[in-house]
């Protein structure tokens, strides 16, 4: 157990202490106890920067289940470190923000909140820093669980529970698929370690399980990262407290899928399926999310769809960049790796501006009591600091200079334009759709960014529509958005502080095969590229985006804008209803509550199973040569037996039926006599006598048999089932008999015959077997009798008092 393992597990350990701290120090906000941990972890992870940016990696292993090849290996490389810094850095700010956001110490279950949040933080660190796929999966599902708990934090609200259930169902569905994908990877490579799997990429690429494994893992990544059509859980997850939305649903958890895709790029990248799935779904998600965001009236809903859209953009870039794996590029070739560079850069940018925007929205909500843009307006003078942070965030999101969003948007355009020049995977014919869709989506992105800022902070202030007197937020709440917004500006003005410290190592992690030892990717981010296509596209985005925003009033009455909810929700909600209805239908269909139906199922299965066995193995054999001679009185006996049996269904009196059943029993005893089994015959006679007496006693209490009228179909089906069971049981018996002559087995009875007297000292072999050779059977059968008798006593004597309760 090294320090690194302790770092990953630290949030879990602190989470154990939180309830005690909460109870013990009621007057101190529990958040203060939490705040130190992410900060310390953030600083600790910063110390890795020199090592990692030099191209190194740190690895520590603790065996967990060595027999299954599952070790808790913490592996820190560029990609893992970037995510670890995001998780701990934004985590610190979110915890600080939440202390002021959930300020009410008395009514809020703060211990729940911080336990869930720490659980999430630890799980997320585990996902990004684990090298073993099974450990990744364990932490992955823990993030789903923690996310569900946090969304349902205000569990008294119906919408919270709905959102929590929805996110749980969708992400766990993806998680399970991912587990299956990981298992397939193990089948292919016989290791769970990501390092070793990457080393065997050539084995995987030619393996027949390549495509199933890839699809299953992508399903996990797409559900977690809210890609179309699995994005529908994210807008409903906005019922969570705003710090949670800021942390989980913008900066960290939804990027777990991005992380997974980046991590798996060396394994699956360079193949057309991976390329098309990622960039296809990504670009569509980008468009869908940005168009849907424009329709929203709730600030958090706008941000949710905006997150979906931005995640789609990162996914597209990862998809386009994976084409680079296809070429064995020399160092310094940037045409294809630009997309990966843009993806990594935008990942960082998105975390900064989206985190700050969520916090801003939280402040607006907290200080005015509403998030509805129709009720907000003119807050700029009342909340100047918040407005500034919002301005920086939204303009960066829209892709305007001098903020970092502009740079990543330019690089995004470069990436999609480069895609058109690719001459593989059918890109010659389809390549043009990427820049076109990207451009349209960017117009809508610009539009909703403008809506967000101008509808909230400019225009006419409407205090009568607000629940509270709007004023500036307390300092503690502002620290988070201010730090993030200043990072937006810093990264915008000096993007190259990131280039070689963090972005280049991340690119190495994503594209390890493209860089030789000692070589590195060329990363240089700058503002002015000259008047190229990308700049023209941005100018077009600003012009058309402004047109969309200015003409918004005209479109607001259109049906398209009135429908806020994503149409896919209809499908989700109804498929849940259909699932339950269908299950109920199937249930009602088979569980009728009538014993005769269940008997029919059993007998049909019984007959069907025997029939299947007989026909499938071609086992029907009737061999009458080896039968013993049949004497005349056996024929007579059997004839009477059959007659008595057939008469039973036609008898309408209980007593008669009992007597006829008794007749059958006595005839059986006679058969035993004929077949020389005196003990059996004696027992059968006596048991039958006692049984008839007992039947008569019991049925004395029962009313006369009612004349039941069955439907003719019921009669026929009963008859058919009975005949089938009889026929197949007989066929099975006859076939078994015939086969026993083909494959003779030495009967064990010879042993008993030889040894009954010498070993057990008895001449009655049946009795010797019963009490000596197989005495245990007898003992337990007698026990069965005793239990049956006691059961009857209890039933008859001791239920009478409590009968009303039955």
């Amino acid at each position, binding site marked *: 157990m090294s320090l690194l393992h302790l770092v990953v597990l630290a949030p879990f350990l602190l989470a154990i202490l939180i309830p005690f701290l909460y109870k013990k120090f009621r007057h101190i906000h529990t958040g203060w106890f939490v705040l130190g941990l992410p900060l310390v972890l953030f600083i600790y992870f910063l110390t890795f920067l020199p090592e990692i940016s030099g191209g190194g990696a740190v690895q520590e292993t603790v065996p967990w289940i060595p027999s299954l090849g599952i070790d808790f290996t913490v592996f820190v490389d560029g990609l893992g470190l970037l995510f670890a810094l995001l998780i701990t850095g934004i985590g610190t700010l979110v915890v600080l923000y939440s202390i002021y956001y959930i300020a009410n110490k008395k009514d809020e279950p703060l211990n729940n909140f911080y336990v869930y949040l720490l659980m999430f933080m630890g799980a997320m660190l585990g996902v990004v820093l684990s090298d073993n796929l099974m450990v990744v999966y364990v932490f992955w599902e823990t993030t789903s669980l923690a996310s569900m708990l946090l969304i349902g934090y205000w569990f008294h609200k119906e919408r919270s529970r709905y959102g929590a259930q929805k996110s749980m169902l969708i992400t766990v569905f993806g998680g399970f698929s991912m587990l299956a994908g990981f298992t397939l990877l193990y089948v292919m490579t016989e290791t769970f370690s990501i390092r070793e799997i990457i080393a065997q990429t050539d084995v995987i690429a030619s393996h027949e399980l390549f495509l199933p494994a890839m699809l299953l893992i992508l399903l996990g990544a797409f559900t977690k990262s809210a890609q179309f059509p699995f994005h529908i859980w994210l807008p409903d997850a906005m019922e969570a407290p705003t710090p949670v939305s800021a942390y989980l649903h913008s900066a960290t958890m939804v990027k777990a899928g991005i992380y997974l895709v980046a991590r798996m790029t060396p394994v699956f990248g360079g193949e057309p399926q991976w390329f098309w799935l990622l960039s296809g779904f990504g670009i569509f998600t980008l468009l869908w999310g940005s168009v849907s965001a424009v329709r929203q009236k709730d600030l958090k809903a706008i941000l949710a769809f905006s997150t979906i859209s931005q995640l789609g953009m990162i996914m597209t870039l990862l998809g386009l960049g994976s084409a680079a794996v296809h070429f064995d590029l020399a160092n310094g070739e940037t045409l294809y790796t630009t997309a990966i560079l843009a993806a990594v850069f935008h990942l960082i940018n998105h975390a900064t501006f989206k985190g700050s925007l969520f916090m801003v929205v939280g402040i607006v909500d907290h200080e005015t009591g509403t998030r509805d843009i129709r009720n907000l307006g003119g807050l700029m003078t009342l909340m100047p600091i918040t407005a500034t942070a919002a301005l920086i965030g939204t303009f960066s999101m829209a892709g305007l200079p001098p903020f970092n969003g502009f740079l990543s948007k330019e690089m995004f355009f470069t990436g999609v334009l480069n895609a058109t020049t690719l001459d593989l995977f059918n890109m010659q014919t389809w390549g043009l759709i990427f820049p076109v869709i990207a451009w349209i989506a960017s117009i809508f992105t610009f539009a909703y960014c403008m809506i967000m800022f101008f509808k909230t902070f400019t225009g006419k202030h409407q205090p009568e529509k607000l629940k509270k007197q709007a004023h500036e937020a307390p300092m503690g709440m502002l620290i988070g958005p201010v730090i993030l917004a200043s990072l937006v500006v810093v990264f915008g003005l000096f993007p190259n502080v990131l280039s070689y410290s963090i972005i280049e190592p991340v690119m190495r992690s994503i594209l390890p095969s493209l860089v030789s030892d000692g070589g590195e990717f060329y990363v240089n981010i700058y503002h002015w590229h000259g008047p190229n296509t990308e700049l023209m596209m941005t100018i077009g985005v600003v012009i058309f985006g402004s047109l969309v925003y200015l003409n918004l009033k005209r479109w607001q009455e259109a049906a398209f804008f009135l429908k806020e909810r994503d149409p896919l929700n209809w499908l989700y909600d109804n498929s849940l209803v259909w699932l339950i209805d269908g299950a109920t239908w199937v249930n009602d269909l088979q569980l009728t509550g009538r014993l005769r139906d269940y008997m029919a199922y059993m007998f049909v299965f019984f007959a069907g199973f025997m029939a299947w066995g007989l026909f499938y193995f071609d086992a029907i054999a009737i061999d009458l040569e080896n039968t013993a001679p049949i004497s005349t009185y056996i024929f007579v006996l059997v004839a009477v037996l059959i007659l008595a049996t057939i008469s039973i269904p036609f008898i309408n009196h209980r007593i008669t039926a009992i007597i006829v059943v008794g007749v059958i029993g006595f005839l059986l005893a006679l058969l035993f006599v004929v077949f020389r089994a005196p003990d059996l015959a004696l027992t059968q006679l006596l048991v039958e006598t006692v049984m008839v007496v007992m039947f008569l006693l019991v049925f004395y209490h029962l009313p006369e048999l009612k004349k039941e009228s069955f439907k003719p179909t019921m009669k026929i089906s009963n008859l058919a089932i009975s005949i089938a069971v009889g026929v197949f049981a007989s066929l099975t018996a006859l076939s078994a008999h015939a086969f026993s002559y083909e494959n003779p087995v030495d009967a064990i009875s010879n042993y008993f015959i030889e040894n009954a007297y010498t070993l057990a000292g008895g001449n009655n072999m049946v009795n010797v077997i019963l009490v000596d050779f197989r005495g245990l059977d007898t*003992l337990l059968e007698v*026990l069965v009798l005793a239990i049956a*008798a006691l059961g009857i006593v209890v039933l008859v004597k001791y239920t009478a008092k409590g009968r009303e309760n039955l």
Partner: protein
Amino acid sequence: MNRQRLILHSMTKVVSFIILSFSIFLFFAGHNEPGGGFIGGLMTASALLLLYVSFDIQTIRRVIPFDYVKMIAVGLLLAIGTGLIGMLFGLPFLTQFDDYFQLPILGETHLATALPFDLGIYLVVIGVALLVILTIAEDDS
């Protein structure tokens, strides 16, 4: 008491003893001839049933004051205990022994531990049969 009952009662008194004796014969014959604990037990139970059928239950309860639940328990304990004898000597459960002994009256007799085991079964079967039938018969709800 009418004549019918009188004949029935007299016959029962004679017949039940014959059946009882025959059942005991069946029980002891079990090792070498058809018979054994199960059949013997059922036969004894039928003899007692005959008594119950011809006389009323209270009379028989007074004359034969057996608690059939205890009889079942004793029978089971006897059967299990016989099985445990072998374990005392480090042999598997239910190991049976048999040998010839010189007894005062009977002379040389073949005795086997199968006999107490069978006796246990005998008792359980009697107990079960009578307990079940009497419980149902006495239930007047």
